[in-house]
């Protein structure tokens, strides 16, 4: 009995906070748009039989017909993928330096990584507008040093989106990698060198494989939210920036087409579930290895 209750708790949690909302969104995605409140039909008011018979996959078919949607998905995947790579390339050396820093410095460095979270995410993204705009700090600085003579257009391009995503999600990359590197025994590197490795070989053959779990965790923690990102492309990106989060928002609030917006969300969820399952399998394998 007690076991059943214990098992029931996480399932109820999952049911109430994930499956029920998903079912609602999925139902809306099968409905048709209507001038009503809520703005779709059929609803339960029409009776259960009419509700079931009124549902169809029309909206999903529509998503395949207008190439805006698949282009947005592809572009989102591309932006999320390359931002993840850049975040890894920037985050790994930072995590490495943190893990190699003197012990008394590490809490301070950790604090500096977490510090941005003390300010609202929205305000921090807005701050980038001030830095990246044509009259922004970055252009003023570059003009002052004489590196450029005409201001660069960074804001409202994909570059700004990349900068925003890398900046925002960097701590999520650093922390798991740091956790993996900090546990790494220094004598393993010495052993590798003793057995004939150069510094570089020791890094590739020992440090990288032993921080692999941190790298995988960090990449998923960046890739998954970056894929559905809405705030960064809408504030920093331009009209040419196509990201599915933005499309979803516009469909929902500007067009007020809830069924199509829901269909976009369902597809996005399916795209996300694949990497999430991969991520969980990695975690599981890691746990098994530690036993």
């Amino acid at each position, binding site marked *: 009995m007690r076991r059943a209750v214990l098992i029931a708790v996480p399932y109820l949690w999952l049911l109430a906070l994930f499956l029920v909302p998903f079912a609602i969104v999925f139902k809306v995605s099968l409905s048709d748009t209507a001038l009503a409140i809520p703005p779709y039909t059929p609803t339960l008011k029409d009776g259960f039989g009419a509700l079931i018979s009124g549902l169809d996959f029309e909206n999903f078919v529509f998503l395949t017909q207008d190439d805006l949607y698949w282009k947005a998905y592809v572009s989102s995947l591309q932006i999320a993928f390359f931002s993840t790579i850049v975040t890894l390339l920037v985050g790994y050396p930072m995590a490495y330096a943190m893990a190699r820093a003197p012990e008394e410095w590490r809490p301070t460095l950790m604090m500096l990584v977490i510090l941005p979270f003390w300010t609202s995410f929205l305000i921090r993204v807005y701050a980038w507008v001030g830095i990246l705009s044509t009259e922004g700090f970055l252009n003023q600085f570059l003009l002052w040093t004489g590196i450029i003579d005409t201001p660069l257009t960074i804001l409202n391009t994909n570059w700004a989106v990349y900068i925003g995503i890398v900046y925002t999600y960097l701590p999520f990359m650093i922390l798991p990698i740091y956790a993996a590197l900090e546990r790494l025994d220094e*004598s393993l590197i010495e*052993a590798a060198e003793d*057995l004939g*490795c150069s510094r570089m070989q020791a890094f590739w053959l020992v440090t990288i*494989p032993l921080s*692999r779990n941190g790298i995988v965790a960090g990449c998923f923690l960046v890739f998954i939210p970056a894929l559905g990102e809405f705030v960064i492309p809408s504030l920093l990106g331009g009209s040419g920036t196509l990201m599915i989060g933005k499309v979803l928002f516009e469909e929902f609030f500007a067009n007020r087409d809830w069924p199509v917006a829901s269909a976009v969300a369902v597809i996005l969820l399916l795209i996300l579930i694949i990497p999430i399952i991969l991520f969980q399998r990695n975690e599981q394998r890691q746990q098994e290895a530690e036993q």
Partner: protein
Amino acid sequence: MAQTVFAPWDDPQQKPLIQFVGVTKRFGDFVAIDDLTQDIYEREFFALLGPSGCGKTTMMRMLAGFEAPTEGSILLSGQDIAGVPPNKRAVNMMFQSYALFPHLTVWDNIAFGLRRSDMPKDAIAARVEEMLKLTRLSKFGRRKPHQISGGQRQRVALARSLAKAPKLLLLDEPLGALDKKLRQDTQFELMDIQETTGTTFVIVTHDQEEAMTVASRVAVMDEGRIIQVATPEKIYEAPNSVYVADFIGDVNILEGTAKANGPESYAIDWGGAEPATATSARPFSDGQKAHLAIRPEKIAISAERPADAANAVQGKVLDIAYLGNLSTYHVELPTGQVIKAQSANTRRVSRRAYTWEDPVWLSWSATAGVLLES
């Protein structure tokens, strides 16, 4: 002596494998190694023994290439190895923590060093199998380090460091993590492997018993200096200083002034009822301060004063430590000094001859103790 004894250090023809020449190592203000000069010969099993912080690990890390001497030079087969990085030295090290790569199997751990050389693939496989056999690990090649026992991990670490057939193998407290029984077995295994492979071993340890068991020579270190280098037997029976006598095994020290009373024989006035007689090849002037170091097992204990003993003192039993094979008696002298005397329990069924508070006589011969300068 008909049979040849392994003692290259006594043979001036022998060329040392390793030479420390005036090596000093400083970490900031701290002097870890202080102007050290020492030769180590091929096929030796050389033990660096000392308390923690005496510089023994620093010496080993300098041999491995992880530290560079501040002054002086280290020669390997006559070549200065100062600028040679660890990965270019024909020296391998077995780490105290074993430092096995957790992501690789036992087999791949042993092959790790070989793969960094230009050895062909099948030669690597053959060498790994040979190493697995040598360390009795053939069945465990496919396992990961966390799937084997501590003793097996220790053997993997040994196999890995021996795989490249180094000129010199460094062992940093190799048996520290093993329990006592396993440690004793492994000591003999280490000696066998050292003999089979003919590799020169340098072992760092703080366990004097371990150093005495495995080593051909023991260097006793303190505060960055080697105090004495000798065979285990010499270190134990003929220590050159109070520090060495005290560090190795148990010892009673009688402090007093020496006075010659015959050729190579001295009377030591140590505050007892009568002066102690001791022989010493080392000359002492009359009235010179001297320490007489006597091992407990060289002191006999009896109820009556033995008639023919060169030295005898009376005291009463303060404590008895029964160790199974031996019993150690702590005997308090009238001067207040406590002397340890040891006797072997050779009979299984016997009544204990002395008990607490019993008056007893302690006696030892003139050659039993070592006379040391203070």
